[in-house]
């Protein structure tokens, strides 16, 4: 039986606390140093479209998409051993309503020398430039990290370990980080025919390698690869292949699909953030390659962002894009004919097509950040999202339309 997320959370916290206590005893009673910090964002967003976008945003406005509160405890037991725990109060990840506390970081760290860092516990495996700090709004200037690329970012909070090796040069450093872990995760889909969101409970095992080159300033180049294996909790497993039953005259309907017990996904990352004169240019791209599952065909995403700091103001312009490389199966599912006699209704077909992870959209964002202090930022953004044939980020069948999103948020740290 699947452990609930609360149980996992408790186990992780208990393990970390036990290990911390053991370390405190092992250090001979030397007092550990503690530091508490916090961060948060209060953000509102409203669109000009009644269809819900990114779980929460529609034309009635929401605070749920961009608001959260986090607290972090950093502990240093001695020169080599330390620990950190980060708890977020944020929208739930297993249903669309409500907020709950979520454990993001809870790990022990061991740093025997400058060049090595070992971490054990709940970790966010880095791949994207801002993946590990995406919840800390003051740490970047965009009002919202482009969802085309950061859509998959939350899939990498694992209970496991990471090993990082750093090579220092005068002006920059190179870090190679390998990680491995498991997580319980709920993948969201939206059944358009039934008009309901569904969450697939899974156990995800994954790991990867990420190489980062950075200087003391803002330059960073990152390349990475993650391999994850998704094991669904339900007895049938994941739907892996749609089958079609010919009806004659070119018509067909849905047959009994095939299922698989696990899905393997390769994800590739490439990103860079480089100052160019007075401008800061950031760009990332990802390629997500699930192996042979019709509901989640491979996709590629990318964005580029240009920002310029003008005193306390930082205006920016961003363009992001995501596209699914194989949409034929989705088109076939949509084109199926309902045959109630076979148990295939219009709702079934609509549900089947809409729960497929098909993305064809691009977004342009124009916004600014006003920095009161490094720990307080006000952000405003206008985003125009153009939907192509289909985008599963919308809870509905929008196609070939533009949606405007207006966002205002205040981020802080203490």
């Amino acid at each position, binding site marked *: 039986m699947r452990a609930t997320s609360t149980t996992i959370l408790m186990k992780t916290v208990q393990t970390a606390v036990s290990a911390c206590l053991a370390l405190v005893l092992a250090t001979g009673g030397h007092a550990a140093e503690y530091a508490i910090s916090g*961060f948060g964002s209060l953000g509102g967003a409203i669109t000009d479209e009644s269809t819900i976008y990114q779980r929460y945003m529609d034309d009635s406005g929401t605070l749920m998409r961009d608001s959260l509160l986090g607290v972090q405890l950093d502990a240093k037991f001695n020169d080599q051993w330390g620990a950190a725990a980060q708890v977020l109060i944020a929208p739930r990840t297993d249903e669309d309503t409500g907020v709950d506390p979520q454990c993001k970081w809870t790990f022990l760290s061991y740093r025997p020398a400058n060049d090595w860092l070992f971490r054990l516990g709940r970790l966010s495996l880095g791949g994207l430039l801002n993946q590990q700090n995406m919840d800390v709004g003051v740490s970047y200037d965009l009002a919202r990290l482009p969802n085309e690329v950061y859509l998959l970012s939350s899939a990498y909070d694992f209970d496991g370990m990471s090993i990082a090796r750093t090579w*220092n040069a005068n002006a920059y450093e190179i870090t190679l980080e390998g990680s491995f872990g498991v997580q319980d995760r709920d993948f969201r889909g939206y059944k358009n025919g039934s008009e309901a969101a569904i969450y697939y409970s899974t156990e995800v095992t994954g790991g990867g390698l990420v190489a980062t080159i950075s200087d*003391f*300033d803002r330059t960073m180049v990152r390349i990475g690869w993650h391999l994850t294996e998704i094991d669904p909790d339900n007895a049938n497993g994941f739907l892996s292949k749609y089958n079609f039953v010919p009806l004659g005259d070119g018509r067909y309907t849905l047959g009994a699909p095939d299922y698989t017990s696990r899905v393997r996904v390769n994800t590739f990352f490439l990103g860079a953030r480089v100052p160019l004169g007075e401008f800061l240019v950031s760009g990332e791209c990802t390629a997500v390659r699930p192996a042979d599952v019709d509901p989640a065909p491979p996709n590629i995403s990318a964005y580029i962002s240009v920002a310029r700091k003008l005193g306390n103001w930082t205006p920016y312009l961003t363009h992001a894009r995501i596209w699914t490389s194989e949409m034929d199966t989705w088109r076939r599912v949509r084109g199926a004919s309902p045959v109630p006699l076979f148990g295939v209704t219009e709702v079934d077909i609509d549900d089947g097509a809409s729960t497929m992870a098909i993305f064809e959209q691009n977004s342009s964002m124009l916004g600014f950040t006003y920095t009161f202090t*490094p720990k307080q930022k006000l952000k405003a953004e206008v985003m125009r999202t153009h939907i192509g044939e289909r985008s599963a980020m919308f809870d509905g069948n929008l196609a070939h339309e533009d949606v405007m999103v207006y966002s205002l948020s205040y981020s802080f740290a203490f």
Partner: protein
Amino acid sequence: MEQERQVFVTFGWPSWGRRYVWGGGAVVRRCWIHLWYMLAGAGFLVGIVVVGLSPPASAGVVVIGHESLTSLGSLDKNILGRIYTGRTVQVAGKAVQPVNLATGDAIRVVFIRETLRQSDDDYVAYWIVRRAIGKGAPPPEVNNIREMVEFIRSTPGAIGYLDASQIVPGVKVLLTLP
């Protein structure tokens, strides 16, 4: 006999040819006011006040450390930058513990600029990110030079900084920054 009371105000550079009558030509007493001179005088006064409130001219920032740090070898700006950004925790096999003055302190601003070529704000922002990605907390902060010296004297491996004019016994001078 009625006295002339007329107010003239000049704008721009003082020039006899650029006078404008203010007050509708009311003439009781002739009074020349050179606005430019007034502004220059005000600026001079403000300058005196600002200079008077500023800290004494710095003789440079000196990097100091606990007396146990006798065999550090060469400590340069690059290594200091790594220490203060959490990238280096040991120098010559010895654990080091950096300590900072509070955000905005004039000596801290100079130290960060000289070692990291960053503003204090950028440095604070750097640590917000580094902490958020689970790579440690920023160096502890003290409120003044007295606390800085106490911390360094009592903490093996501690490294800090102060103005060159404030060097006290009981700490080791590791580097002088211009």
